[in-house]
């Protein structure tokens, strides 16, 4: 009922909304290219869950776009996935990615293949390493704020995700995950991690503030 109310309210509120990426609300922006795997229904399910359990308000419709799209880079959150096709960024595109990330943007790069050597996975890692330097992709520790932004992940659970990232200014600015979106509707912790990552894009290191530490420490086993 609450969700319905929110959606109705959002329809009335945002009915006259201008295109995309310019609202202060969270919007799922996915990088569109020939190897992209649009999972609109899954994304909507994630956003539904996000609205249901958090105070975050969203733009209903996910947006699929690429570098040429006007305002594409005005979204601080960009999702990128793929499977069997490799991906290559041009020099200008790499510059834009670097600029977006250093300005505070977040990229979630998700391997939709079970294969760890899938063309997408190997190529996308190579591309990002060419932007941020060889060896810049590092494991994200279980103590990272990503595992605390909303749901609290116990260490053993966090470790299972084998998240990796590229760190800029001490924050994970590019997050590399495996089958995160695909599994979200089916598996509880995948959904929770996705919600945490969205929350991380909105609140960054808020949960590292001193005020939260005693509570979090107490709740971690």
């Amino acid at each position, binding site marked *: 009922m609450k969700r319905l109310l929110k959606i109705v309210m959002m329809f009335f509120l*945002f009915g006259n909304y201008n295109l995309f990426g310019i*609202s202060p609300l969270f919007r799922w922006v996915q990088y569109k290219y020939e190897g992209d795997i649009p999972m609109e229904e899954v994304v909507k399910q994630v956003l539904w869950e996000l609205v249901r359990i958090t105070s975050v308000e969203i733009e209903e419709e996910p947006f699929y776009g690429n570098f040429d799209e006007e305002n594409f880079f005005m979204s601080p959150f960009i999702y990128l996935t793929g499977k069997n096709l490799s991906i290559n960024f041009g020099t200008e595109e790499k510059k834009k990615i670097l600029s977006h990330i250093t300005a505070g943007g977040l990229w979630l790069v998700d391997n939709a293949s079970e294969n760890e050597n899938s063309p997408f996975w190997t190529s996308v890692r190579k591309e990002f390493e060419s932007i941020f330097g060889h060896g810049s992709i590092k494991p994200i520790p279980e103590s990272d704020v990503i595992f605390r932004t*909303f749901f609290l992940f116990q260490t053993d659970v966090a470790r299972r995700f084998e998240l990796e990232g590229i760190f800029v200014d001490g924050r994970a600015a590019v997050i590399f995950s495996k089958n995160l979106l695909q599994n979200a509707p089916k598996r509880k912790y995948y959904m929770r991690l996705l919600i945490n990552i969205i*929350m991380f894009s909105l*609140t960054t290191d*808020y949960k590292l503030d001193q005020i939260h530490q005693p509570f979090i420490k107490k709740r971690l086993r």
Partner: protein
Amino acid sequence: MKFLEITPLKIVFVLILFILFFFFSIRALHKAEKRWHKVLLMGLRCAGFILFSMAFLRLSSVKKTYSETRGKVGILIDTSGSMFIGEGGGAINQIKGRLPEYLRNFSSQGREVDLFTVDEKVSSSSLENILSIENSEKETKILDSLDEFLRKMEIDYDGLILFSDGIDNSEKSLDFLKEKGIPINTVRMPPPSGKDVWIDKVEFPTVAFKKVPFSIRVIIKSNEIRGRGKLKMFLNGKLVFNDEIHIKKEIAVLKEMTIDEEGSYLLHIALSPFPGELTDKNNYFTDYFKVIRDKIRILQVVGTPTWDVRFLRRFLKKNMSVELISFMILRTPEDYLYFRNEELSLIPFPTREIFVEAIDTFDAVIFQNFNYAPYGPIDFLINLKRVVQTGKTGFIMLGGDRAFYKGEYSNTPVEEIAPVRFLDVPEPYVHGEFKAKLTKIGEIHPITSFLKEFIEKLPPLNTINLDIQPKKDSLVLLSDIKGNPVIILGESEKGRCVVIATNSLWKWYFNSLLKHGFEVYTKLMQNILNWVTEDPYFKEISIEETGEKVIVTVRDKNFKECKKCRTSLKFISPDGRTIEEKNFEAEGNALLRKDEIPSPSIISIQTHQSQLYYPLKGKENFEFKSFKEKEKLLEKIAGLSGGRYFEFEEFRPEKARFLSKEKRIENWKEIKEIWTSSLFIFLFFGVIIIEWTLRRKWGMK
């Protein structure tokens, strides 16, 4: 006798001339009949040549006269404050009693005496002047003064005599005394002694931090005085401590305090005088300290995470001058609640801790699209209003779908302090692109004037709150093209508030970061923070000291230099008495001459809304802080300079040590050139005439 023009060239010339003269004379005289004729004529000729040479080389007689003198003596008398304290009017009166006798004594020795006074410098004086000095507040700077005196001294004294109690406030080393080589005889006067109580030391930070507690520790010492006394402390003329204390040999009084306003403060401490004490001049202490802010402590309360929240937090976290306490509502009571606490990282909203216990500690509170109603009673907002209106805390309210009227702030203390009224309108929060524009006030106001050159290039904003209406006295700096206000400023009693009626300002930040451009957002938000926290740059009254002048600048609420602003100016004494008061209409800057302002004092300036206290620093005077002699100072001065040290009662002028300069002095000389004398002329021409006559007589040419 002395040749006045004897040079090697002239000697050579005379020698050559003599050889020629001798050669031709021998040749000319060989015709003489008798040998003795020849010898006599040659002798006469030689005599004539010698006389010529004497005239040529200007043989003169020189007569010198000499006189015998004795060197002068300088007497330096300490006339600083401590010399006037104690029995019988202090040590100065003992010197006054003996001084004429000393002068007579020196006179009988044939010595001239120059008199000087010594306090903060050495000044030339006379017996009459010294005898007429009745009191002094001046400090003793014996070493500083002596050094300057010896360096600038024009008269070559045989020695100096210094009368002093040895209480000195200079920090100089004694090495300079060896350089000049003039014996300084020192005469120690007994320092003031007797029953006394005094403020010995006050320990306090020279720089304190705003809203951070600090302490002032007063150490009071007494000599033979016991009993109850009153201690008062004033800050910029306001009484902050008034308590009874029990005087004993040494006590320490501690006062803890916290100051909420940045600025300069004059600390004045007064201990009540005791009957019969040596002096009450050491019962007072006055000094200055500054209160600065360490960091701006900001509370950011967020109703829901958005990009606007994310980038405001980024700006605040990256700001080195900000200590940020964020609190974000990540889950509302309407959200799905069925998780165990252990599954979530959420903590309860610490309403009480924030709005009751810690509210006084924040320099600024930001409500960012935050609806207070579900989280606490209205009493919490009353606390917010209190700290804002007392000027302790600035308040910034940012828009969104749960701010202003939608945030249920209508008819609450927040509406009282905000520069806008919250309206119930059909479309309280609207989405849609719009360009922001500066209002006329916005173009000149220091918060937004810089935007003038950027505003056209900035991306459009996307949300605007229409559920607000600026209050009468508020200032709208930024609006949409239809004139709906976007940035509104206002004052509530002593506090400052800003309303930003959009939650899409983040676009200006992110967009400029993407383009590596000028970060308009950063400067705008920094200006807003500085304004609400009353950074001195944004104060309506400012004071600047330059050389001999004090410049007071009064601005109106638009921060333009004031024209005909009613201004009240007061000079307040350190203990809070109004010394002088005048009202005038300020025209921009007002100039005050420092020498016309009593010092130390506090300048108080008040315009319609603002008040500023500015302590005008006087010169620190340590003279009465302690009557302790500097350890063996007078002995050391005498020892190092080659003089003698005396206790006052032992001193006799004839015992003092001086240089022996009783030497012959060449006063004048008389020069008489011989060739100009009649005897010389007579001799010269006599010799020539005799020689010529004899030659003729003896038949020679």
